[in-house]
């Protein structure tokens, strides 16, 4: 059933530092709104039920599965997506390390992995193994395997703590 216009919800939020005003349906996910309403397609959907982490972005600094967050819930929130990571031509250290380590093959899980890794290293610049797993185990990679991804994140961590 299509809701009437008065059921729509107005949402103010900051996306990658840019104040944004949106009018969303109450049942639309943040993932859907970002991708299909404002064209920020860098955040990917893959399982659409919070199992694979492809849609990971940062909401108020914490990693969330944007397929499980309703857009209407994030009023006043601060959203960071993969599009906000690089400064112009200058790649973020995680992006650079992902290229150098060959950690992005098909690249579909990459935005979610990079955002999850950013959240991990923001919180713990030099994580031990358990912290590393707890930060990353919600993200599935189907084609690259995890070896080069671990190397990329660890490589970024070395520069992070400097």
């Amino acid at each position, binding site marked *: 059933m299509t809701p009437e216009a008065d059921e729509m919800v107005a949402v103010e939020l900051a996306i990658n530092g840019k104040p944004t005003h949106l009018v969303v349906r109450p049942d639309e996910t943040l993932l859907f709104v970002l991708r299909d309403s404002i064209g920020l397609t860098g955040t990917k959907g893959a399982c659409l039920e919070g199992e694979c982490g492809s849609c990971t972005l940062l909401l108020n600094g914490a990693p969330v599965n944007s397929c499980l967050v309703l857009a209407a819930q994030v009023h006043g929130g601060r959203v960071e997506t993969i599009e906000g990571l690089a400064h112009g031509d200058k790649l973020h250290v995680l992006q650079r390390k992902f290229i150098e380590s060959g950690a992005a093959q098909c690249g*579909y899980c990459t935005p979610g992995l990079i955002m999850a890794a950013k959240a991990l290293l923001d919180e713990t610049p030099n994580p031990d193994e358990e912290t590393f797993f707890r930060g990353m185990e919600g993200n599935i990679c189907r084609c690259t395997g995890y070896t080069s991804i671990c190397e990329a994140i660890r490589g970024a961590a070395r520069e992070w703590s400097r």
Partner: protein
Amino acid sequence: MTQNIQTIDVPIAEPFAEPLVPPSQTPYVERPHGPVGRSEDRIDGPEKVLGTALYGADLFYGRADCFVSVVRSEPAHAEIVAVDPSAALKMPGVLGVYTHRDVRGTNRQGLIVRDHPVLAESRVLFRGDAIAVVVATSERTAEDARRAVRVDYRPLPVVADMDAALAPDAPRLHPDGNIMGGKRIRKGDADAALAAADVIVSESFCTQTVDHAFLDLEAGIAHYDGRTLTIHVSGQWVHEERRLIALALGLPLESVRIICPATGGAFGGREDISIQIYLGIAAIQHPGKTVALRYSREESMRARHKRHAMRIYYTVGATRDGLLTAAKITVFSDEGAYRSTGPAVCRKAASHATGPYRIPNVSVDVYGVFTNNNPTGAMRGFGACQMAIAYEGMMDRLAARLGIDRLEVRRRNLIRSGDAVTTGQRIPIATAVECLDAAVRRLRQCPPPRPTDPHKSRTRPPALPPHLRRGVGYSVICFGLGYGDGFPDASRARVGVSDQGRIQVFTGGVEYGQGLITMAAQVAAEELGVSVRETDVVWADTEQTFESGSSSATRQTYFTGNAIRLAASELKEQLLDIASKLLGVHPHELELRDGCVVGRFDPARSVPLAEVVAQGRARGYSLEATALFKPRTVCEDFDTGQSPRAFITYLFGSHIAEVLVDIETGEVRVDRYIACHDVGRAINPQSVAGQMAGGATQGIGMALMEEVVNRDGRIANPNFTDYILPTFRDIPPVECVILENDDPGGPFGARGIGEPPLIAATPAVLSAIADAIGVHTHTTPCTPQRVWELLHPDEAAVPPDARFSLAPPHARLER
């Protein structure tokens, strides 16, 4: 576009008639000195880490005018009595509902035999068969309308598994019956050799249905302008998709254009056509509109073909010393509802039934059996990975029976250079033993620190807690690359140069993450003396590129790499010819280096490529070249399965897994993992290692957790909550060992890497579990429950002896 395609037809040589050079001494005549052999960064890396690469679903924004939804069968087997779209058509925003009556062409799909109606006509054969296509102004409306389309069925008995399919009174799913076909191999006299053997070992194996589970769900857009139907959807073989869509939808070939967007994995799962054709149906009905369609994960798993579940009955005979004398193998393969690439999977299973082992007397029968499950077709490993589970399982059992070391039994039987595999094809450079030895050498070295925790010591605790058992498992595999068996297999490439001196490579191959376009750039750049940064690759667009065959069968590096190299060398001749006139130096004394043509003996004589191009254009040179690489393989003999060249070349690999098994819970943890492959030459070592690690991860998933559960024709777990994939915690660092023994026919000696890492992984993990718990495994995946049941056979839900009610030699293969 120039039509002077250059053909290099590699003759069917008699490689075994020539003296053999030991593998380590077969250097390729030309050593690469440019980008080939270097771990160049992927050329699509930046757009992928920035999130700007556009995958199918990323094309919706700002383009999609209307949305498509597919009405699918609910029953697994039924006659369609009526399709009534009237309720859906009354919904606001619904633009149309289309059935097979609206399809103007053959309405047939299928890669080998076009046996699958695009939209069902009178019968549905699996729960997921497409019946109608709905077009609406919003995705939500399309979805609501799909549910409102009323389909009346007359239910038919569901053939839920191979037992039911082979029962004498089973309903016939296809006109010829429920045996799709298969392949047999007869070499020597297996029965006589078994009768004379010192020792006989028999076992049956049961492998599961597996889903590709690529993350990038099927999605894309299409547009029809009244003349040309343009479809942007990820596939694995755009030119075949074009042929198939043109025929099925009744359009001239030149009216269909397929463009492949960025693609998030494929693994064989995009080889069969998927949403392209529904988008085509919708677009034709709504000219001028851009139509869009994307699957949910559930629809993706319901609609797509799967990996064949196989039952493998395996008997080997050997001497007391462990030398194999005979193998008798019968395989039943759940083909699902339609053929897909099933016939080829059965053939590949048969030709890889004994893997890299030298067995003089072999009898193999592989049967594909139709059921009302999802069609099964291409998936990385393509029939060879199921057989590797069996032959490696048999080697472990034989070793245990004879009390000989597992590695020793393998070494005694592994083929050496010049020996033949089961199809009778002799392998001039067989490096199975070298791969095994290199992997074992690596095992003896201390494992590297884990990148997840470099601080943690990797020294092993002196004693394990009492509930844990450690085991080490080995596998050795071989794999014939390309389609093989005489199936036409070719790749074309075009290489040109821009006015600025940039090299442009055009290939029809699909980049889905495996590194094809970086490989293409490296090969062209190597040949033309430029850097990868000065090379552009245009790929998988039926209008701009020639056909390069599918991105599958581990074939693109070998086939397209060769085609690009040939085209680039043709272009090089033109460039040197032009420069020769400019510099007054004979072309043979010129070379391309660092973006210039330089005198080989007089480097002071030099002219930039852009200048050569400008002069060449003025003098009427085409400044582009197209090449075809089309080596021949030989179709096997129907009765014996023998062929002097079933596959163009063979790959070898060996994996070692170390596992910890919790005997109280049955849980298995892979603790250390080593993968070794001989790739001929690694054009990009980092890419090769990436394919090895990714393939090993999928193989470990197949060994331990991945299983599509089919119940009465219904997939019980069509989502990532219940279909379990390996995560960071499940996979240790994959230690990659790359061997390079140049292939005389490969580009710069390269063979390929795609499928073998998956094939070798599953048996290595199973072997390790058996080593840990002292009981051999026979059913995949080895979930905690299955491992626990192996340890407690008396309490198992299914007694081990009742695993198969099917008696093996039950079917006959008709010509």
